[in-house]
């Protein structure tokens, strides 16, 4: 395997950490702006809307509830955006990841697993029934999407013969993984919506429970959680581009431009499709995930393994 230098080694730790922070803010803004455009059909004003509402939330006074658990509540709130940015650390930006381990895919998965604890804490903290119901709904949904997500990540790892995102990118030089792993691609994108509890998987913040986990959030707390969700969705779109759509590969244009174009396309597709689907009940999601998606993603991993043994992938 050719060793690709990490961004931290190539450009220094502080500049590349700032780059990842900037990319996170950009992706979060992109998701929020596209969401506004899809929702309202507005053009230019929608681009500024995320900035405007962020400033409004920053200046808004925080309200609290009777007998909350402030420590756990604040921890959960702060963890959502922090985990979103940390998951971006192994997503290649301009062909380099901020830092690289031999297990980038597992790192990405672990950040998303830590989100289970964070979202449940956001629901638990305010000592309010709707928020807690939302937290429990998120865990139920987590049980549904986690295994199919892991199996689709395993399919990618098997195909590339490595868990390192840089190796996965170079393994797709000939053919993008989406061609041989369409099921894993779709499951990965659906899981992205599920762990950002967004779109059809928005039951944890459902209108029937007055906003669920976000119902008692105000001011900067709400900003952090909403930004974390948007960054997670954007980071997963960027990761989907790296894992399935060949990253920066493409004709004529330089790599980073292709990567940006593909990421924008995936974000637009995710947001557009997500806004057009009804919210699914978590109990339904769990049954479909366990009885349909787990076997289907297992078969996908098996197909990839057989293709690998038959020399389909240039590893």
């Amino acid at each position, binding site marked *: 395997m050719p060793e690709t230098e990490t961004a931290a080694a190539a450009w220094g730790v502080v500049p590349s950490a700032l780059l990842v922070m900037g990319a996170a803010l950009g992706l979060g803004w992109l998701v929020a702006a596209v969401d506004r455009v899809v929702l309202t059909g507005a053009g230019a004003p929608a681009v500024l809307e995320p900035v405007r509402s962020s400033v409004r939330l920053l200046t808004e006074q925080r309200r609290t509830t009777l007998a909350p658990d402030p420590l*756990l509540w604040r921890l959960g709130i702060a963890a959502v955006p922090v985990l979103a940015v940390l998951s971006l650390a192994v997503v290649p930006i301009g062909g380099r990841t901020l830092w690289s381990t031999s297990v980038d895919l597992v790192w990405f998965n*672990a950040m998303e697993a830590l989100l289970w604890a964070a979202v449940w804490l956001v629901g638990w903290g305010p000592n309010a029934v709707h928020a807690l119901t939302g937290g429990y709904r998120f865990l139920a949904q987590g049980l549904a999407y986690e295994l199919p997500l892991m199996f689709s990540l395993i399919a990618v790892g098997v195909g590339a013969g490595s868990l390192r995102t840089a190796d996965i990118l170079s393994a797709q030089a000939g053919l993008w993984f989406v061609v041989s792993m369409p099921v894993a691609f779709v499951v990965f994108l659906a899981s992205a919506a599920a762990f950002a509890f967004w779109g059809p998987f928005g039951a944890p913040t459902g209108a029937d429970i007055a906003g669920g986990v976000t119902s008692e959030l105000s001011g900067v707390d709400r900003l952090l959680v909403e930004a974390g969700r948007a960054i997670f969705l954007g980071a997963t779109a960027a990761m989907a581009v790296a894992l399935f759509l060949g990253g920066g590969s493409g004709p004529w244009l330089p790599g980073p431009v292709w990567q940006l174009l593909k990421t924008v396309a995936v974000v637009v597709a995710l947001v557009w499709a997500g806004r057009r689907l009804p919210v699914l009940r978590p109990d339904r999601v769990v049954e479909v995930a366990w009885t349909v998606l787990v076997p289907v993603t297992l078969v996908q991993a098996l197909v990839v393994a057989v293709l690998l043994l038959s020399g389909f992938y240039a590893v």
Partner: protein
Amino acid sequence: MLTDLSGWTVAAVVVLGVLSVAGGIAVFVVDSMARATFALLASFLAVAGVLLAFDLVYLAVVTALMMTIEMAIMAVFMIMFMMNPAGLMPMTMVHNARGSAVTGAVTFVVLVVGIWTVDWPIGRTERPEDSTRQLGEAIMGSHMLVMLVIGIGLFATILAGTVLATARGRYDRFGADLAAKRPDDPIPGGLPR
């Protein structure tokens, strides 16, 4: 010098080790089930940090991943089965205080004596290039049988536990003569059955 690790690594291991012990103690000090659960998670995450400092990235990340999911699910069940499901009322994780203190002290003494008296072998082998690959080869190769037996054992335990815990059996779902076409479930699920 006891190790060939860098000063930063040793410092990180010491700090994280203290944090993990502090998290473990906090489990028995805090008075809410949610705080106890997440103090335990903090302890596990500190252990994951120690593994990360030793450059065992796969073990570190997998520890964080598994323990977080486990603690999140444990929080649900622990709070569900508590006498006070809201969980914010004072509670304690300490039961049989004297017995557990004696057990803890004896275990501590045995472990410390063992650690300082056993003539531990000194690793002379070269560190592998990729510890993740080495671990994978061990699990899928020489230790495959052990892993399979453990896996099946765990799976059987989970199934048996669920079967013993559930109040509803097949007669509740399919009727006394098991003749019903569709099971009568309290939660319908997502598939047409």
